[in-house]
């Protein structure tokens, strides 16, 4: 059994972590009262935040698993403040993690755009890598592009620092790409959180299943070490009527992925896990579809989990060599940084104007 650490930082990371805990309970509103969490492995979840209200709103994460870093009510999307706050409190965070025992793998879940999550996560990964030898993967949620210039520049710097922190791979989820999930903004956020949670639980099961023809943590490490350090996850659920090859295909098509990518062109390595009743899992269909993918991107790991009576589901983990969408994000981010810089320059000029006025301080008009 694997020992897995999952840390959610900032509001977005906390909420996704809470969704993972909810899905592990079974997904029902009151499931935490009558059910046990059905993690296949020993999973420790820890939510870290500077905003107490964000921690209080969690419903499925135990209070003992929430770490409040006292800094008034958040860092106000200011990564500088966030970094200082992490450095002031990292002993508390690292002590809490060390008290949870030894781990085989860790996942740090965060938004790239906010204050606490985007500033804490690179530093947290750096600390984890410095103290432990288990792989640390990050799950990073990119913002809606229209959310504002600060969020865009935060995302750009956060992703860069993530890569520099020594993380073993960054799994991307893109709010902009997934925004059609729900009607209103809250439903969209909830839907995205649930999507990420379902995929993570499936992934954990794939890493720790004792059945034959399954993937394991070693395969996952190999997949994640490919490409440019970025990856995404796809998922699809069949209805039992359509062939399994179409379910596999859907899992890495745009409607199944968490991040916009042409995997046939941008993919580097992949891991495909199928789960369902034996009657739905036609080996020829599976091999045919996976061979098609591997002919484009190279090696594809595959795993099969047999579940009697269950419709076929497919999880695909894809590492990316390049990502056009990330290029677009950085282009927007540079524009956002330029815009912020221009605003700051204008403010500096305004301060010069203030200096002009200060020349007559202490003088009185003479008539």
């Amino acid at each position: 059994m694997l020992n897995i650490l999952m840390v959610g930082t900032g509001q977005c990371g906390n909420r996704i972590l809470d969704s993972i805990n909810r899905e592990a309970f079974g997904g029902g509103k009151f499931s935490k009262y009558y059910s046990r969490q059905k993690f296949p492995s020993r999973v420790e979840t820890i939510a870290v935040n500077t905003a107490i209200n964000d921690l209080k709103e969690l419903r499925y994460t135990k209070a003992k698993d929430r770490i409040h870093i006292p800094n008034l009510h958040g860092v106000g999307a200011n990564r500088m403040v966030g970094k200082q706050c992490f450095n002031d409190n990292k002993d508390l965070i690292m002590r809490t993690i060390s008290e949870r025992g030894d781990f085989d793998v860790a996942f740090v879940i965060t938004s790239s755009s906010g204050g606490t999550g985007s500033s804490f996560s690179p530093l947290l990964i750096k600390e984890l890598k410095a103290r432990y030898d288990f792989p640390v993967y990050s799950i990073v949620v990119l913002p809606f592009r229209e959310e504002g210039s600060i969020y865009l520049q935060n995302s750009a710097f956060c992703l860069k620092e993530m890569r520099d922190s020594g993380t073993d791979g960054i799994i991307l989820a893109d709010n902009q790409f997934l925004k059609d999930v729900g009607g209103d903004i809250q439903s969209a956020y909830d839907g995205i959180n649930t999507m990420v949670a379902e995929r993570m639980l499936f992934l954990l099961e794939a890493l720790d299943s004792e059945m034959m023809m399954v993937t394991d943590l070693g395969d996952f490490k190999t997949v994640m070490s490919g490409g440019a350090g970025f990856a995404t996850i796809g998922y699809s659920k069949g209805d039992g009527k359509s062939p399994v090859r179409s379910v596999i295909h859907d899992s890495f098509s745009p409607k199944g992925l968490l991040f916009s990518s042409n995997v046939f062109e941008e993919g580097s390595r992949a891991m495909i896990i199928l789960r369902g009743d034996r009657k739905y899992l036609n080996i020829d269909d599976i091999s045919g579809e996976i061979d098609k993918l591997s002919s484009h991107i190279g090696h594809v790991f595959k795993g099969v989990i047999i579940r009697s009576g269950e419709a076929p589901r497919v999880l695909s983990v894809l590492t990316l060599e390049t990502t056009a969408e990330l290029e677009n994000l950085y282009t927007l981010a540079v524009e956002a940084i330029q815009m912020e810089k221009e605003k700051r320059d204008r403010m500096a000029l305004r301060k010069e104007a203030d200096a002009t006025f200060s020349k007559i301080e202490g003088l009185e008009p003479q008539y």
Partner: protein
Amino acid sequence: MDKSSVNIGDTIRVTIKARNTGSGTANRITIDPGISPGFTFKSSIYTTYPSELAVSTTYTQMYIYEVEAAKSGSIQLSPATATYSSSFFGDDYTSSSTRPTVTVAEEQVETSDLELTVSQDKTKIKRNEKITYTVYVRNVKDVPASTIKITPVFSNNLTYVSGSEEVDIINDKPIIQISNYGARYEDEYKFTFKAEGVGASNLTVKLTYNNGVEDITKEVPSVIYVEEGKYDYLSEYPIYVYLTPILIIVAIAGWLYWRSNQFRM
């Protein structure tokens, strides 16, 4: 006599007849009607009886008078006496009549008479429910009654709850006491009881009063069957039947509270 049963004050007509059963004529006949004590002589109707009476097989009417009954009871009349002399020897003789009995009834005294009626507001009752009896008393005579007592006598499975303002509680029992009940007076009284036990409940309303001559007692009994109450079946089960779900609910509530606290920050 024209009547053998009369009331005091009634008039009785007495007819005296005589027959000569001897062998010669009776001469110089005189009649003493012999008025009896208990009667008051009113008048002589016929007094012209013959002074001689020949031997005959039939009776001859001799004397008629009327008396008034003055005393009650069974009264044997005093005999009428005939005095006469023989036509052969000239000696005087007397002969007495029979003594018929007259029954004189006692004089009618006007008394009061209280009529007692009892009704109830329910025909069926369940345990712990209440039932109200309405007692209606009416003096049907023109003579007042005195020392009236109305007492409900009830079985153990009924408990007196309340009643009309005339009701007093003496020795934990309800009673209505009224000194006088005027002529033609009527009134009604209420007694409310609570049914405490299942089964037949007897309630007898007892009315006693003095009618001017003597003490009278009247009773109206009634029976009502008390059925099991709405929730009586609950008491039929053993205590664990109730304790078990309560303990389960408490345990679930405790679990929910403990579990909620685990997720509350």
